[in-house]
């Protein structure tokens, strides 16, 4: 008999999977769970920092002729708020959940490239520190999170402020891209035997869609920022119209990444919702095929809508019409997902636990954000709405309401798996209701402000313009919303010691991460599960595990493989076993390479050749050792 129904030989696996102890272990780990949680904690740190920046801005705008901050600091605040939320919170926090959950959900013991994974995190951390040093030295970027030229060139933005942005964006892009490659290979090659492509959890589909968008769009952002830095540091003129360059070229490049980026954030958030709603409705997700197809459709269409950020630039209206139409069409996949969630709830019985509340809050908010999205994709209306507070409202309904709410839901849902402790449900409800109500109090009035002519990115306004009360309401709402998010922070800290013990599967959920202990062991699964359903923990009780004999698992791993630092490689649409992969040992090379790159960028920033060369030397040494290790030393 080759299929066992209990957890075999766990004791023998511990020593081969264990990280090194202490500080060395901290810096050398390649465990996707530790890396994933670091991503989540680090990005939440940036979330609260960027939230505080927003509150300072709202304090300044609460009344006309505000005197809290001046224009120079205000410009730094909104630039850093946007840059942080996009590059240092939303993107990496979703990468963190993906990192933690993707291998767990597909029954793998680690990512396809664990060291690359650790490297991605260190790059993200160093890039975050790099960008925030600008605040410490009082020279934060002040050209807006989009840094349009010519305002951001060396003539109009002398000083190091914009270099922090341009270099930082290139820097953090390395992390995002490397992570995406890792996600794609992991999702396609590391699935547990038998997990056919049509049995992937929807969250995994959303990560796949996200990763492909990253791979095709982030390099374009890197080019946009690299040309900007080349203009700034080396005097080229790619974007300088006075020397034959083009200011609009930058906008095309930036938004060619910038709009897919919205969906890079939104897709995994919907994947989280598609994971939460069925579990708390006690109903299999209705319309799995359409939901999965919608995710892939979004990933494609998102590359055809970027010009809707440029409707006011004077491009020919026929050409813009195509992008206007595509921007309307991209509503369809989201609508399909939305009705699939309703259908699931309709057929099920709902448990109003905090994760479900956040998912429902997401649905209420996203519906409005999606509808205003259709409105602004209509070109003539966008001429009025663009660069006004109407857009500020719309984008926060989408990127705060429809991305942050699912992330908070995911925290309540998955953190018990990660830490072994439940979050407090009562505190979670308080947090949710305060966030939900005051989100709307803060951001809804901004629609009206935009319709009444208030442009974005203004540090002050005069008292006779009719904007006073709406701004005051928005500011009060923002402050209370901030308190709501703080309650969840307290909840997370509190639960670490006092939360109820979660057990393996507190929500009686369907996906594989819930089949192992909370928190999971270093090797995730003592034995490789054999999958024959979309909902293995609901349909395959007890879950079949492959350890020995001529069956599926042994074809890939063999008895010894299952007891080694190995995880199965599978292939084809039906994930048939191909071979086993030996998971690399912990290593200091990822952090060494990342550190070298950080020093290199610091050298570029201060234009000090010795620093630059030192960084390059550290990086090249690290990379060579890494390659040497992989090719020559490997057992």
């Amino acid at each position, binding site marked *: 008999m080759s299929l066992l129904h209990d957890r075999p030989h766990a004791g023998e696996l511990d020593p081969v999977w264990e990280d090194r102890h202490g500080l060395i272990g901290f810096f050398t780990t390649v465990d996707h769970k530790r890396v994933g949680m670091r991503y989540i904690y680090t990005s939440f740190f940036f979330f609260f920092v960027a939230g505080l920046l927003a509150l300072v801005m709202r304090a300044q705008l609460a009344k006309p002729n505000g005197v809290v901050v001046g224009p120079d600091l205000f410009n730094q605040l909104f630039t850093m708020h946007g840059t942080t939320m996009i590059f240092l919170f939303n993107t990496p926090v979703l990468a963190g959940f993906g990192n933690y959950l993707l291998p767990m959900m597909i029954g793998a013991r680690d990512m396809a490239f664990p060291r690359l994974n650790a490297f991605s995190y260190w790059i993200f951390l160093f890039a975050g520190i790099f960008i925030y040093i600008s605040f410490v030295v009082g020279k934060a970027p002040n050209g807006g999170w989009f840094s349009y030229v010519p305002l951001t060139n060396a003539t109009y933005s002398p000083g190091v402020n914009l270099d922090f942005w341009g270099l930082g964006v290139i820097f953090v892009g390395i992390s995002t891209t490397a992570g995406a490659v890792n996600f794609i290979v992991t999702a396609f090659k590391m699935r547990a035997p038998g997990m056919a492509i049509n049995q992937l959890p929807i969250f995994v589909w959303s990560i796949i869609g996200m990763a492909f968008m990253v791979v095709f769009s982030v390099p374009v952002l890197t080019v946009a920022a690299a040309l900007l830095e080349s203009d700034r540091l080396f005097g080229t003129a790619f974007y300088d119209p006075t020397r034959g360059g083009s200011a609009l070229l930058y906008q095309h490049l930036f938004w060619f990444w910038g709009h897919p980026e919205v969906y890079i954030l939104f897709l995994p958030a919907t994947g989280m919702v598609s994971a939460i709603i069925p579990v708390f409705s006690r109903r299999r997700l209705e319309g799995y095929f359409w939901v999965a197809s919608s995710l892939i459709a979004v990933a494609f269409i998102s590359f055809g809508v970027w010009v809707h950020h440029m409707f006011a630039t004077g491009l020919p209206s026929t050409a813009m019409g195509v992008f206007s139409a595509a921007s309307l069409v991209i509503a369809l996949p989201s609508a399909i997902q939305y009705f699939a969630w309703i259908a699931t709830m309709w*057929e099920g019985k709902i448990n*109003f636990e905090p994760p479900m509340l956040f998912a429902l809050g997401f649905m209420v908010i996203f519906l409005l954000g999606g509808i205003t999205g259709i409105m602004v994709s209509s070109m003539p209306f966008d001429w*009025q709405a663009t660069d006004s507070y109407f857009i500020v409202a719309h984008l926060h309904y989408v990127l705060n309401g429809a991305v942050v709410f699912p992330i908070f839901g995911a925290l309540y849902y998955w953190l018990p798996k990660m830490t072994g402790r439940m979050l407090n449900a009562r505190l979670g409800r308080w947090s949710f209701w305060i966030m939900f109500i005051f989100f709307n109090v803060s951001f809804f009035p901004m629609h009206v402000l935009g319709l*009444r002519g208030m442009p974005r990115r203004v540090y002050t306004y005069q008292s006779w313009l009719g904007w006073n009360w709406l701004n005051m309401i928005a500011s009060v709402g923002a402050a209370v919303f901030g308190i709501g998010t703080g309650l969840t922070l307290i909840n997370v800290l509190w639960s670490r010691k006092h939360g109820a013990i979660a057990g393996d599967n507190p929500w009686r959920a369907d996906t594989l991460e819930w089949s192992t202990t909370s928190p999971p062991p270093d090797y995730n699964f003592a034995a490789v599960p054999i999958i024959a359903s979309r909902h293995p923990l609901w349909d395959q009780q007890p879950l079949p595990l492959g350890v020995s004999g001529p069956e599926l698992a042994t074809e890939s791993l063999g008895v010894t493989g299952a007891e080694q630092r190995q995880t199965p490689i599978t292939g084809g649409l039906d994930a048939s076993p191909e071979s086993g992969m030996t998971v690399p040992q912990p290593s200091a090379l990822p952090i060494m390479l990342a550190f070298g790159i950080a020093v290199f960028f610091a050298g570029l920033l201060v234009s000090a050749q010795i620093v630059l060369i030192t960084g390059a030397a550290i990086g090249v040494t690290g990379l060579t050792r890494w390659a040497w290790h992989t090719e020559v030393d490997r057992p």
Partner: protein
Amino acid sequence: MEVVTARAILLRGGWVAMAVGATTLLWGCGSSSPSTVDPHSPEASHIAGLFWLMLWMSVGIYVLVLGFVVVSFRARQSTSRERGSVGGAWDVPPIGDVSDRRRSARFIIGGGLALPIVVLIVVGVATVRTTNAVRSGPSVVKIDVQAERWWWRLTYPDNGVVTANEIHVPVGESVELTLTSDNVIHSVWVPELNGKTDVIPGQTNHMTFTADAPGTYRGQCAEFCGIGHALMAFVVIADLPADYARWLAANEAPAVAPSAGAVARGASFLASSSCAGCHNIAGTAAVGTLGPDLTHFGSRTSIGADTLPNTPGDLSHWLADTQGVKRGALMPQIDLTDAQINDLVAYLESLK
């Protein structure tokens, strides 16, 4: 019991949100300038019509879909919340039979595909019609608008009038603005008259509108352009044709010669001071071009690109503390005595 409470709170929260929304929306409609939904040109009217069409459709869709959501979790309430109890709220979900799946599929395709396609077709047709309606025809009145940091240089090429921050146009005539910038990107936005058009270095954009009633319509730069962005406003003043002709005639003339006293002292001080290096006052020794033309400054309604109203008191304030009024303005702070300020104010306000 707790389930009922949660549901009740959710519903109550929804109503609160809707009430807040409705109130703020109504609040918005009842106010004066500036506003996209109080159009004063055919162009802005077409766009406002498109907005109202989409708004009412949106309200309908929002209520309908949210209605589905609310009904969906009223449909079957679980009775027991005991985690893990058999026959309770955390049972393993059954595999729905074919008729269940068929019902859900019809719902998903109907609501997620058919309904939005109908909506998108309506929005798409309205978009094309509005775009064509707003598209510019031939214009008689042509005005060159150069976006500066952070003010607007205005030239009436057919009449030789040069002014700043205050665009006079005749009511009922199609006006074409030619938009250029030799610095950074700006954007022209007068919500009552038309949507935005960016002003981009290296290219020339155009914007047309026809004001349908006399009045003052406030505009503002809508593309972030640096430290002075928030205070880079302007006004469009729509005059009846006779008033417009009078305004043109007055502004074609050189500056009025200073009379005696403070006005004369101010004139001679200005001509000999560094002011003359940047500002032009036609007919005098001040021939600078970096800053706004001041030939008819006294006839304008505002100071510093609609930052302050143009009164003697505000002008004194501006001259005494330029950087305090408008941080980052490229006009340097010049040390002036109170007497010099009084003379300058008297002279500048005399330039009708």
